[in-house]
């Protein structure tokens, strides 16, 4: 996979994830405020955790 293709895929993936998040927030907005806050902070926390774990793979030991 060349770098521009990978970057395009990353962009599309982020866009799809954001639209899914936005739809989730819309659905939560109909259900209640607590769920909205949960999704608003929970999803970025999960994304961050995935990045944190994925970026340790293949990392040389110090």
């Amino acid at each position, binding site marked *: 996979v060349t770098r521009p293709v990978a970057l395009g895929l990353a962009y599309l993936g982020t866009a799809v994830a954001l639209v899914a998040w936005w739809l989730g927030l819309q659905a939560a907005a109909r259900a209640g*405020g607590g769920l909205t806050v949960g999704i*608003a902070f929970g999803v*970025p926390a999960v994304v961050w955790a995935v990045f944190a774990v994925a970026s340790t793979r*293949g*990392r040389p030991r110090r």
Partner: protein
Amino acid sequence: MIASFWSSVAWGDGSLVALALIAVVVAVMLFPFAGRTRYRDYRPPLFVAGVVAMPLFVAIGVSLRADWPTDVRAVVVALLLLGFWASAVWLASARTQGVYVDGLTFGPGLQFRPDLVLPGGVLLVKGVVLSGVGGMLAFQESWRLPAWSWWGFVTAFVGIVTLIPVRGMVKMLARRERFTGSAPRWQGPARWVTLVVGLSLLLYGFLAAFMGRTPVADFRPVRGELPLATALLVGSAVALAVRERWKRHLPEGSAPAGLVVLEQAWLYLSVLAFMYGTVLVFMGRLMSPQPATNPTGVSLGATLLLLGATLVVGLRPRALRNELRATIVVMVGQLAAIPSEPRQAMMRRRMLVIATYPLAERVWHVGQMLHAGAVLDEPARQAVDATRNEVMLELPGTVRRAMMEAMDRQVSA
């Protein structure tokens, strides 16, 4: 199900355009351009956390348009704004910036390093937004939450891009020139233009967004207070230009903390005046806090204004200092990575520049260069040390003595 999906996607309200813009920025900032093995070294976890918290704007927009009782909406929006503030606070930590990693160069002496410009930019933008929302809540006759327009946010986003990546690039280019010998004449004007243009778009966009209006289509200047508004806009823009000139006399890196805080307070107060001028242009009447009829709005507004001030005046000086330190770390790493001949030439130019600084500034920069060399791996450190020693021997006597004096002070400190 597909039909309900399409019906829930409101194409015309601008929300998908806003999401697309955020997606581009998030994807580009987090993409592993230099591979995954050393990802954390050039995109540290605190930086990643700051980027993934950026779409909180989306949650705030959705909550402001939600069909809940006002008090529930107020609590949800307050919590989201607190998260919005907190996700800027941790960017003031020195752990937001990474170290030099090979594979991010995109021009001579330039690296794709958003961690070197994002913290200062985000602290300014979020500080302005929180203060603006605070003012808006306090100025209302009675307590109510702001509205939300996605097209307003799209306009503001163009301002955010101008203030953070575009202005950040301008600062990086100017810093590269300053560090290697020339103080470009364009640097002050370029920083000022990007600041004023970015602020104008940001304030106009968010004012439209929080009033639920569509920019241009149904959000235009109103006659009424135009003379005062013009005076405020021109006056604050001039104050920002004077600040740019004054900054030229501040020692870079070694300026006393009090002066750096004063510089940010100058920026913050000028921005508040610019903001009030913008509000007058589009509201057409004088606005003031209404504690008698809107005590909730005034107290919440004052809290948000205070939170905004903590970001710009309290934490931004720290973030800017960290950016400068990390820029030197990356620069020295890059120095080690290039061939011997250009490394010598660049080291020589850098030393000639440092030798012209006043003593305190010289000692600070020498200290940062030594520290940056110390965090490199062994072969890279040896290459930089050897080049430094060779260049020192060839320097004119006065320059060498100035450098030796700074090194002695640094070692004894």
